[in-house]
């Protein structure tokens, strides 16, 4: 296999928080290279620092040690090339669905595209997530799943080099979640984005990812194992339930998570 240059390089990253009760080492020696078009899930028990890792990649928090590189350039702050879909959608409630996406489009393409082009791009993104019909609704008027679709549209509208999903479906019911997972797979197949997703759902990780990064527990959490999901795409959830590769991936992750179960819960 030809050695590819990674889009995103996480290199010997450590993160220590200064808390009132002293310093807390959340992450230690995290090394990960993510290639173009790859869909990588990061899974681990709650509080293992996976969200911290995503925040570091997003630039919302700064690394204590090591460095994160996007196409070779050091990440030193947030930016639209690393768009985030937040766990609780984070739509601005005073703007319409259209307005929320347009806000991002205007900021990112303000200098480069005309108003008409930005309008078309906004509508195209809403169409992509099947939300064009609700363009003029307010976030308070649509369901949780729809809000998350709009959040995805807003992030995709920035044309990010890496799309960051922070437990995007965590707050949704199982049926809505399945629909959104299918949508994300479809979009990923169509656009070929590089995606990093935080999740604590084993099935979701196996279904969506090319690679599953399993994180050990904090303090000083790091990458425990990485599992390559050998399933071909497109993947259909119904056919997978008896697929040997699917079951192997699933049990590999389950084994890891069970082994690393914290004693706190017991």
């Amino acid at each position: 296999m030809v050695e590819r240059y990674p889009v995103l390089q996480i290199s010997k990253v450590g993160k220590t928080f200064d808390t009132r009760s002293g310093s807390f080492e959340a992450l230690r020696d995290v090394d990960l290279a993510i290639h173009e078009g790859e869909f990588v899930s990061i899974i681990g028990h709650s509080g293992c620092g996976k969200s911290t890792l995503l925040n570091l990649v997003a630039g919302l928090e700064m690394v204590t040690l090591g460095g994160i590189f996007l196409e070779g350039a050091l990440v030193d702050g947030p930016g639209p090339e690393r768009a985030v879909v937040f766990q609780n959608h984070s739509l601005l409630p005073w703007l319409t669905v259209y307005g929320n996406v347009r806000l991002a489009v205007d900021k990112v393409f303000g200098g480069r595209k005309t108003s008409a082009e930005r309008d078309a791009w906004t509508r195209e993104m809403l169409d992509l997530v099947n939300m064009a019909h609700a363009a003029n609704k307010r976030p308070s008027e649509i369901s949780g799943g729809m809000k998350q679709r709009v959040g995805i549209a807003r992030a995709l509208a920035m044309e990010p080099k890496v799309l960051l999903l922070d437990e995007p479906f965590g707050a949704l019911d199982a049926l809505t979640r399945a629909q959104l997972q299918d949508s994300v797979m479809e979009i990923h197949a169509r656009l070929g984005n590089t995606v990093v997703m935080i999740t604590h759902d084993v099935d979701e990780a196996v279904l969506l990812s090319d690679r599953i990064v399993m994180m050990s527990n904090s303090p000083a959490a790091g990458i425990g194992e990485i599992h390559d999901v050998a399933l071909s795409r497109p993947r259909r959830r119904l056919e997978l339930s008896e697929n040997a590769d699917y079951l192997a991936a699933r049990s590999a992750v389950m084994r890891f998570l069970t082994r690393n179960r914290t004693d706190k819960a017991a």
Partner: protein
Amino acid sequence: MKTAALAIVAPMEEPSAEKRESREPVSPPRETARHEPSRLEMALRPVLLPAITFALVLLGWTVMQATFVPAFPDVPAVWNKAVEIFSNPFYVYGPNDMGIAWQVMYSLGRVLAGFFLALAVGIPAGFLIGANRTFEQAWMPLIAILRPVSPLAWLPIGLLVFRAVDPSAIFVIFITSIWPVILNTAAGVKAIPQDYLNVARVLNFNRREMVTKIYVPATLPYMLTGMQLSLGTAWMVIVAAEMLTGGIGIGFYIWDEWNNLSVPSIIVAIVIIGCVGIMLETGMGFVRRRYDYTGKE
């Protein structure tokens, strides 16, 4: 901070309270109701029930007047006075003798002047206090001390500084209005979820975009709640302030009529003050609901 928090009415709590009000009249529980109220009955209730209340008050007034306090004017006397006052509301017989409409308008003018001055100062101050911990720590103790003081206590200071009654009355209204505006704006800024700020950071918003696209719209419902509180209180305070300052204005009108021993005029003025207060409240409430994204509507 605790005392300050008491003054803050979170805008999200309000719509529910209003909905409850607007849903009146409440239909009686099914079990006890003999029949479903007809549509006509439902339509008449909001008119009939208050009418009964008013009738009871007038009856009580008449009885009291006839028995305990004969010095108090009876209902027809007040009615005749009202007719007289409203028959020529815009007369001007001199700088100190004008119709009731002028009295109300002078008072309203002072209220609005003080109110808008308070907005001009209070909104930026609220933003600074809400957004900046240093400002908050520096200014909140002073605000906590001054806020419980009756605004009328500032009137002598206004007179001393401005050497004129009109600016002093406006100054008192300014003091009245500014605390709810500052505190609610600051509370609104503090209540902005970190998520909105993260969205803005991912989009690389600069300081100006941060203020115009996140801070102001996110805080607007809180600001408007503060403004509604301010305006209502300001209208109450102006009456007392004008009693002390004199000149033209509904407050001094009441004091003047007391000196003339014309109690019917005072009662008419009280009703007028109440009606103007309702109009201010309704207008401000309308504006607030227009910009309140927290309710579903």
